[in-house]
């Protein structure tokens, strides 16, 4: 793993953009190490973090590094609660605290296997930097709830899109696209990130078809660097793994059934 500098650092927002239902935040990080695809950072706004009626956020929040170039880290944000709301409010020039890059990223596919990137909602973020990192062409399958969210697909190249409401691309689940892709050409390795339901669909499908898969999980996190043991997900065969330290990317075989707390939760659908 790329080692993170010890201690959080104060970074400056260089630009922010709307991307459909999402927000893209670009942050100058001249001295930060280059992240591996799948790594994440813990972010907190430097000003006005917390307060208000619910007196949250207090802790920093985890975000996949969606892209890294020219000393800038890009993040894709979805406003689902007080922390993401505050980060989505940031404007160029504002500052935020960042710790990272953190966690274990994706492992590049073997030469002879085609990579299929499967993303759901804001879970497409780590797939963008993964696509940047893989020299060979990859298959990109992205699922969204509706047209506004589907605009996120432009973050990646040549994505095929599924939407729940059929407003863009395939009407239905992105796992349906994946199933037919694997059927068409089973010599593939799958990289997936998204809601728990989608990840469980991917995991079950890949287990059934014997397709290797790397899954990027989510979990509520307090620290992001293995200190709190809060981000546990069940390990296949018993015990727990720490998502921030042992993941967020896991080989599908390391995991049990993926439950509701381990995927990127859907907006407005608090688990």
């Amino acid at each position, binding site marked *: *793993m790329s*080692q*993170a*500098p*010890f*201690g*959080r650092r104060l970074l400056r927002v260089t630009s922010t953009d709307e991307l459909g239902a999402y927000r893209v935040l670009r942050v100058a990080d001249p001295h930060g190490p280059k992240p591996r695809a799948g790594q994440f950072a813990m972010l*907190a706004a430097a000003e006005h973090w*917390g307060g208000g009626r*619910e*007196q*949250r*956020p*207090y*802790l*920093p929040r985890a975000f996949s590094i969606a892209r890294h170039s020219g000393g800038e880290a890009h993040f894709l944000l979805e406003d689902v609660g007080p922390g993401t709301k505050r980060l989505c409010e940031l404007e160029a020039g504002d500052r935020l*605290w960042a*710790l990272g890059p*953190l966690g274990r990223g994706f492992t590049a596919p073997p030469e002879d296997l085609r990579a299929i990137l499967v993303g759901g909602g804001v879970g497409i973020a780590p797939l963008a930097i993964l696509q940047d990192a893989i020299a060979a062409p990859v298959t990109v399958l992205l699922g969204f709830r509706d047209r506004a969210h589907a605009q996120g697909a432009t973050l990646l190249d040549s994505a095929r899109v599924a939407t729940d409401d059929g407003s863009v691309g395939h009407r239905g689940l992105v796992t349906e696209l994946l199933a037919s892709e694997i059927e068409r050409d089973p010599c593939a390795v799958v990289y997936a990130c998204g809601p728990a339901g989608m990840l469980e669909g991917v995991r079950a499908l890949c287990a059934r078809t014997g397709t290797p898969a790397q899954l990027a999980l989510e*979990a*509520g*996190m*307090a*620290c992001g*660097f*293995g*200190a*709190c*043991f*809060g*981000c*546990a*997900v*069940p390990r296949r065969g*018993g*015990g*727990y793994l*720490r998502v921030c*330290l042992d993941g967020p990317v896991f080989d599908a075989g390391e995991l049990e059934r993926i439950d509701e*707390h*381990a995927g990127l939760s859907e907006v407005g659908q*608090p*688990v």
Partner: protein
Amino acid sequence: MSIRFCGLELAHPIINGSGTFDAIAAFRVFGEGLRGAFPFAAYVSKTITLEPRAGNPPPRLWEAPAGLINSIGLPNKGLGDYLLEDLPLLADMSTDPSGAGDSQAVPLITNVMGSNAEEISRLLEACDERPEISAIELNVSCPNVHTGLDIGADPRQLEQVVRAVRGRTGKPLIVKLTPNTADVALCARAAQEGGADAVSLINTLRAMALAPNPLSRPPRPWLGGVTGGLSGPAVRAVALAQVAAVAARVAIPVIGMGGVQSAAHARELIDVGATLVAVGTASFLDPAAGARIAAALHAGTAP
């Protein structure tokens, strides 16, 4: 700023709260360089039990107003593997508080928990044999494990247990008190009477959260462990009151903790009588929080 505590020589008064900093994980994440620039003057391990524990089912965390509720459930590899695998990795840590390169050793304090005097005795005996361990902290206060609460909340029982196990180690014995009690100073005195060399407090306050879904009736607890413990700024004023009450009533040194986020907060605990101050939840916001606080204390500034 060097401090003597139970015969140990510490570089500064800031240590970590048990279970809030995993040094081995930190070496993996931040590199081995951390070993020579450790943020804490002593390193307190997560609670170790005789047998391995997986911990509580997720979710384990809930963010509260100005605080955190955890229901981690004391996952640990058990005494045997801790001594075998972890101890070697935890030796040779040092800290460099002034940044001037005059680094100082970081003693290891092993935190242990057992459900009765017999279990605790075995834990203390095993730790006693290991030179890597400089002191032992006895957790009688974890709100997630039934017996931990009961022993620590009742002064009589607490004194009996401490007295019963005290002879098993010649190393300094710190008793970590529970804050979930009617009169924490009485418990601290009981620990002292039983033979503790120091007391530490506060552990987390018993707390609860419900799953945030008004539509999914019936309501259900959010945490896999049902209840959890509250830490962070929300509890700081409670910690200050308890540390002050304890320090006024015992002769042994006190390790104060609870919601410390700045050198000013650490200074307040010292002002009411703490010898050392532990930083817990604040490390989650910034792993270098301990180092920043120690440096600011050292400089006499108050950020």
